[in-house]
């Protein structure tokens, strides 16, 4: 789905034809286009609605048939280079509209003179405009992705965590040098992920491994105050997710749920696949302290934004405050990793 390169500019991409957001945008745009044509053509308001029904009766079959075909061909189309893919889509929709018009008139529907040619031309025009729109939209959003990456970096590393962790490692140096070594290795891995190009989706199993390393570091300094419960039996390991989609939430959970209390607290992480969607539910204890929640909101907004950039309307992030616990629920479409030709770092 996503391009496999890690070069700086992201390659041009066709819109994701199976994405609910894309489909809604196409439906809205084409219908608005049709309605505008009707309003221009009709002289009086009174006739607009009946003329719209006539137009819609012709328009919707074309629209829905094309969307259905594009939906079915999406995996194949999205693998093509951008230009070839765009030409294929233009040709496909034009030919399909032509054919549908011919078929409808053969069935006795009377669409007027030269209907098939006119419909094909209109479809070509509409498809062209929409492809151009999606191209512009992708262009407008791609700086947002790199921006989001930067923000992710800045919002994410709490200096508090970094310096306390280094201090904890220092405390191990003399008596338990081997533990100190593995802690430093975890810290290095964590920062490698934090600092790399995080615009591409990555396997969920990588994210979970990162979270484990992060929690090991926290356990080093918090000791028995931090209890972690993992429920990942039904986790789809190969699901592709935005990098750093869980780790910042765990950092919040530690900061707001574990650190303010002197008694042990449990962070529970539950990840599972249900009806083609990946769910991740994080729960941590919560004491109202009236203080610092700005950091929490920033991380949540950042993740929500990145989910929207990658999955549009198909992903969501919700948080819920119960009596004594705080719960975050992430829902994402299940996109298994595809075999990739180049080796990944």
């Amino acid at each position: 789905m996503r391009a496999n390169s890690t070069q700086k500019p992201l390659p041009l991409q066709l819109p994701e034809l199976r994405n609910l957001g894309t489909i809604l945008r196409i439906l809205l745009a084409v219908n608005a286009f049709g309605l505008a044509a009707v309003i221009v053509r009709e002289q009086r308001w009174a006739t607009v609605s009946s003329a719209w029904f006539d137009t819609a009766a012709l328009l919707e079959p074309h629209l829905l048939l094309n969307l259905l075909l594009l939906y079915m061909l999406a995996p194949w189309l999205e693998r093509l280079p951008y230009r070839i893919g765009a030409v294929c889509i233009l040709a496909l929709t034009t030919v399909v509209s032509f054919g549908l018009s011919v078929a409808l008139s053969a069935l006795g529907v009377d669409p007027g003179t030269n209907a098939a040619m006119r419909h094909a031309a209109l479809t070509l025009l509409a498809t062209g405009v929409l492809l151009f729109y999606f191209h512009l939209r992708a262009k407008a959003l791609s700086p947002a992705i790199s921006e989001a990456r930067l923000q992710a970096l800045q919002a994410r590393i709490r200096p508090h965590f970094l310096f306390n962790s280094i201090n904890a490692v220092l405390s191990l140096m003399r008596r338990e040098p081997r533990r100190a070594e593995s802690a430093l290795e975890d810290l290095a891995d964590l920062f490698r992920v934090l600092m790399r190009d995080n615009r591409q989706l990555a396997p969920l199993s990588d994210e979970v491994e990162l979270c484990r390393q992060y929690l090991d570091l926290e356990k080093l300094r918090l000791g028995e105050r931090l209890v972690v419960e993992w429920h990942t039996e039904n986790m789809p390991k190969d699901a592709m997710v935005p990098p750093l989609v869980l780790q910042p939430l765990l950092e919040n959970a530690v900061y707001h749920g574990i650190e303010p209390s002197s008694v042990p607290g449990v962070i529970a992480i539950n990840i599972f696949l249900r009806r083609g969607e990946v769910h991740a539910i994080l729960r941590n204890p919560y004491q109202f302290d009236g203080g610092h929640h700005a950091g929490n909101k920033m991380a949540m907004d950042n993740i929500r934004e990145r989910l929207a950039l990658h999955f549009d309307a198909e992903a969501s992030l919700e948080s819920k405050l119960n009596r004594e616990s705080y719960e975050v629920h992430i829902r994402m479409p299940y996109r298994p990793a595809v075999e990739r030709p180049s080796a990944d770092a």
Partner: protein
Amino acid sequence: MPDAPLRLVIVDDEAPARRRLRELLDDCASALPLVVVGEAASGREALGLLGSTPADLVLSDIHMPDMDGIELARHLLKLPLPPVLIFTTAYHEHAIAAFEVHAIDYLVKPVRVQRLLTALQKVPRLKPLSGAKLDRLPAAARRFLSVTERSRVVLVPIEEIVYLKAELKNITIRTAEREYLLEESLTKLEEEFGERFVRVHRNCLVARDAIRGFERRVNAEGDAHWEVLLRGVSEALPVSRRQQFIVREIGRDNGG
């Protein structure tokens, strides 16, 4: 006392951080006679420890559960011989800025042994932090009020207080169990805990949670006034004419 070793207490909620400081203090011991007399995981624990084990210097973290370092500093002042306090902090932009402005000593974690030694050598010349200096640090409201009784610091949790009443020079703290005497100003307490307490009279703050209701009383001369009824204590407190509006305000909230 030039030859007596410096007595230290380490306060940090993270065990590795305490251990690290101990190692560094061992390194300093050859240059400066010192002895670590105790360790505590929170400000509250530290106060309990210092009640029985006097110390010259407290090295305290700032962010801790139960009682943070800044609140500990305030309660330390109630000890008969308050120790010098040096904060240790991993990173806290605002706090650090405030410390620099008010020349309050602090060490940044991870601490370098040389920096620690320099701080220790200054200790005999340092005085305990003054309340005025502490007032200017960015701090959350205290979780306890502290009173000195028989040269020990007694902590009264804020949530147990039913009312605070100014009498002559002191303030009486009333909990369901007993009374304590405190030397602070009622106005300052009102500023700090305004969320939790409401003023019913020029000389009295009452915990909102403790209010059971209001009752109208008529005295022998025929003057009527309101009294506030409290949970946990049997006495009723008069509501002054100026503060009568709270009867309606709180009565409405409680009555639904």
